[in-house]
C-alpha cells in the first residue's frame, strides 16, 4: 500500500472540513479526488503533503506513519494550483531547487534536471525566466520541479485550472502517459468530472468533507453509490417514486409516469415496500422506438428538443406528467422530429435506486 489514510478528521473552528476519511492507494495508481469547491478535497491533499495536520487520524506512506512529519520529511511532492514557481529563479533553477536543497553535487543536479526536462519537452527553455514562458510550459516546469525528486507520491492540486479546454485535453493524455512512464503513485485533485474520467485509475468522490465513493471509473460511473455521486458524475435522469414490491432479485417502483423495474444489485440500501426512492437512469442507456416494445420499463413520451453536437445527439423528451427526460445516442439519423410520439425503454440492470428518506 503506497498511501493509506485512516479516519482522518479536520476541523477549522466550528467547520468540519474532513469527516472520517479513509483512503487506500496502491503503488503506481492514479487516484483522482473529485469534488466541488469547498468539499475538502484540497485540505485532504494538503494533509497528505504535510502542509496541514489532521485533528484526528493517521497518514501512512509506504507503511510508515508520517502524520506529524513536516512536508520536507515526506516522500511526497506537490504541484500547486497556482503552480508556485519561484519568480526570481529561471526554469533550470526552479527545477533544480529541491535537488540543491538536498545538496546533490552540481553534475548530478545537471544530469537529473536535463533528464526530466527532456521527458517533459522543456529542455530548450532551461535558461528562460519563468515569467516569459507560456501557461502550458509553466505547467511542465512545475511538474518537472516535483518529478525531478522522484517522489513516491506526486500530489497535484488542480494544476490545469488555468489552461484552455483544448490544451487541457492534450495535457490529460500526456499526464496519463507520463504517470505510466514514471510509475509512481499520483493523487490528483479536481472539480472537473471529465478530467477525473480522463485521468483516473481510481476516483474518490468527496462531498462536504466525506468520501462518497471510492472506486474504479466504471464502478463510479455505472453504479454511483449515492444520489450526490449520481448527479455529480455524468448525466442522470431521475424519477421519484415509491417501492411497491420487493421480490427476489427484482424491485418494483411506482412512479408518476408508470412502473419501473430494477435489479437488486443496483439498489443502494435496503428499501422496503412503501419506501420513497429515487430512480436514476443514464441518458445513453435508454432506447427510443416508434412503436411500443414488449420490454418492461417502457414509457410513452413526446419529442420536445433535438440537439446534435458532433458525436452525440441529445433528445429531450416530455413524459405524460410534464417532466422531462434526456436521451443520448451516437446514431444521427433516427428520423424523429419535434412533437413526435415515441416510446422509450431501458433494461432493469441499468436502473439505480436510491432511498430518499
Amino acid at each position, binding site marked *: 500500500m503506497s498511501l493509506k489514510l485512516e479516519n482522518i478528521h479536520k476541523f477549522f473552528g466550528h467547520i468540519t472540513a474532513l469527516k472520517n476519511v479513509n483512503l487506500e492507494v496502491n503503488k503506481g495508481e492514479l487516484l483522482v479526488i473529485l469534488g466541488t469547491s469547498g468539499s475538502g478535497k484540497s485540505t485532504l491533499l494538503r494533509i497528505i503533503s*504535510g502542509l496541514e495536520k489532521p485533528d484526528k487520524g493517521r497518514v501512512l506512506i509506504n507503511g510508515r506513519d508520517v502524520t506529524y512529519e513536516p*512536508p520536507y520529511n515526506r516522500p511526497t511532492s*506537490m504541484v500547486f494550483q497556482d503552480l508556485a514557481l*519561484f519568480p526570481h529563479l529561471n526554469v533550470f533553477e526552479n527545477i533544480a*531547487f*529541491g535537488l540543491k536543497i538536498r545538496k546533490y553535487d552540481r553534475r548530478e543536479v545537471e544530469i537529473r534536471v536535463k533528464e526530466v526536462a527532456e521527458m517533459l519537452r522543456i529542455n530548450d527553455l532551461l535558461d528562460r525566466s519563468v515569467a516569459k514562458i507560456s501557461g502550458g510550459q509553466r505547467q511542465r516546469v512545475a511538474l518537472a520541479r516535483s518529478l525531478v525528486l522522484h517522489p513516491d507520491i506526486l500530489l497535484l492540486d488542480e494544476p490545469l485550472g488555468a489552461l484552455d479546454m483544448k490544451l487541457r485535453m492534450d495535457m490529460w493524455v500526456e499526464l496519463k502517459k507520463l504517470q505510466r512512464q514514471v510509475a509512481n503513485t499520483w493523487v490528483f485533485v479536481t472539480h472537473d468530472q471529465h478530467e477525473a474520467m480522463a485521468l483516473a485509475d481510481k476516483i474518490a468522490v468527496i462531498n462536504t468533507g466525506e468520501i462518497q465513493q471510492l472506486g474504479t471509473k466504471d464502478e463510479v460511473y455505472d453504479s454511483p453509490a449515492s444520489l450526490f455521486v449520481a448527479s455529480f458524475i455524468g448525466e442522470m435522469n431521475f424519477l421519484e417514486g415509491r417501492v411497491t414490491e420487493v421480490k427476489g432479485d427484482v424491485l418494483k417502483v411506482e412512479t408518476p409516469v408508470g412502473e419501473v423495474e430494477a435489479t437488486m444489485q443496483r439498489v443502494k440500501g435496503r428499501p422496503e415496500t412503501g419506501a420513497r426512492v429515487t430512480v436514476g437512469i443514464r441518458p445513453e442507456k435508454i432506447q427510443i422506438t416508434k412503436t411500443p416494445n414488449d420490454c418492461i420499463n417502457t414509457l410513452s413520451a413526446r419529442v420536445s428538443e433535438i440537439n446534435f453536437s458532433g458525436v452525440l445527439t441529445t433528445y429531450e423528451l416530455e413524459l405524460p406528467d410534464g417532466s422531462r427526460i434526456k436521451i443520448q445516442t451516437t446514431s444521427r439519423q433516427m428520423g424523429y422530429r419535434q412533437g413526435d410520439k415515441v416510446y422509450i425503454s431501458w433494461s432493469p440492470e441499468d436502473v439505480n435506486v436510491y432511498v430518499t428518506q
Partner: protein
Amino acid sequence: MLPSRKGLLTWLGRRRWINWIPSTTYLLLLFYIPIAMLMYYSFWRYLKLFRFEPALTLENYLRFFTSPIYTRVLLNTIFIVGVAMALLLIVGFPIAYFIARYVRSSADRIILLMLIPVEINYLIRIFAWRTILGENGILNSFLVAVGVIEKPLPIFFYNWFAIVIVTMHEWLPYVVIPLYISLRSIPRSLYEAAHDLGASRLQTFLKITLPLCKPGILTAIFIVFIPALGEFAIPALVGGKSGYMIGNMIENQLLAAGNWPLATAASVILLATSLIIVGIMVKILGMEALYR
C-alpha cells in the same frame, strides 16, 4: 475668430509635445537650473568671508580631498548612515514580515499607527530623545534607580550612536512600508512549495523570502539613505563631537565660514557619493533580476 472648444482640443491633440511643457518647465526651473547653479558655484574662487569671484577652478575640490578633516567627515557620515540603515533593515524586516503574514486584515491600521509619530514636528521629535537619552533622561534615571550606575552618565547622548537612534526613529515607517509591500506580494504557496521541496524554514527565508524582498530593500535604501546622508539637524542637535556629519560641514561653510564655493563643492561631492552608493546597492541587489 475664436476656435471652438472641440477645435482647440483636436489642435492640442495633434501636438502631443505641448503636454510636456508644464512638467518640463517645473523641473527645469526648480530642479535642473538650481543644481546646475550649484555645480557652477563649486568652480568659483574663494577670496575672503562671503567674497568669491567667478572662475573655473578645481581648487575647492582639491581642498576637500586633500584636507584630512573633510574626507574623514565624509567617511564618518557614510559610516553613521550605513549603521543606521543596516539596523533599520534588521529592525524593520521582522515588523514588516509580521504585518504581512499574520495581521493581513488590519494591516492598514497598523501602518497608519506607525505613521502617526511622523506627523509630529521633526525638531520636537529630536528633542524628545534628549528626555530619554540625556544626562537627566529616563535611561540614566532608570539605570541609577536599579543600581547599575551610581550617577547619571553623559555617554548616551551627544555622540554618533545617538544620531543612529534618532535617524532610525525618524525613518522606520519608510523602511517598513516598502518591505511590507514586497512581502505581501509573495504568495503563500511559494513558502509552501519551498517546504514541500525540502527547504527548512531558514532555507526558505534565505532562498525565497529574502531574494523576493529585494525591491523592497532597495526602495527602503533609496528613500532613507540619500536624505539621511545630507542630514544636518539631527547631528547638530544630538551628535556631539563624534557625530559631525557632512551636512554640518556644508552648513558651517555656507553660513558661518562664508565659503560658498567650498560648500557647493562639498554638496556636489555628497551628491556624487549618494549616486555611487545607490549604484553599488543596485548592482549588489540586482534589481534587474526581477524584471528579466
